């Protein structure tokens, strides 16, 4: 398992291999499904076009909270492994911002765990988005729909 917070862009292929190797180390031959998700920066918000986003984090806590989330996903969905990577700093439109992956014996657990990782990440990992256009910028408000998505998992488990 792994949890990474970094400024640099990432290679999905490398992360997939890292996750697959980690699952093989834990349960050789017993991984039947790997689901991965990659989030990108859209070029608009409710008010119009943007140039990108700036992501602030809490050095130390962000890494720990992301790792804790990965551990929880492994436990809740009996995964062989899981991983997450979140970028911070300035990220422009259409660039990759976040990646999560789950490796399980069967596909349903892997799909569910990938959703869980994203839903809970939006609740418990200290990261804050600011959208910018030119020299103007504005903080993104937390969404009620994100709260609902996370609550869904709390009721299930």
């Amino acid at each position, binding site marked *: 398992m792994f949890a990474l917070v970094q400024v640099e862009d990432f290679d999905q292929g490398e992360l997939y291999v890292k996750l697959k190797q980690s699952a093989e180390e834990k349960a050789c031959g017993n991984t039947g499904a790997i689901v991965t998700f990659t989030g990108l920066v859209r070029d608009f918000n409710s008010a119009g076009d943007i140039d990108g986003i700036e992501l602030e984090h809490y050095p130390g806590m962000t890494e720990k909270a992301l790792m804790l989330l990965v551990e929880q996903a492994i436990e809740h969905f009996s995964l062989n492994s899981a991983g997450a990577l979140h970028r911070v700093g300035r990220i422009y439109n259409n660039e990759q911002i976040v990646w999560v992956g789950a490796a399980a014996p069967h596909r349903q657990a892997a799909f569910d765990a990938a959703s869980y990782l994203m839903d809970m990440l939006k609740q418990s990992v200290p990261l804050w988005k600011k959208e910018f256009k030119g020299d103007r910028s504005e903080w993104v408000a*937390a969404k009620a729909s994100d709260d609902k998505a996370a609550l869904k998992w709390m009721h299930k488990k």
Partner: protein
Amino acid sequence: MHITLKTFAQTREITGEDNITLNLSDNSTIKTVLSQLKTRSDQWALALEGSVLTARNQELCDTETVLSDGDELALFPPVTGG
């Protein structure tokens, strides 16, 4: 006792203070600290009007949490990663 207070995102921008040391009575709760901060300046009063999350020693916690000497307390708005 002394604790370190850190702020992030809007809380940092509004208050203009991102890392300060506070001198508190022993066994103070986070709720007590928040009440004191509201009177520290108009900016602090404004920053604490909305929803603010609290973390003690880099773990999310509630405002009834009792602080200890040397703790790191962080205040920040609801998170918006992903």
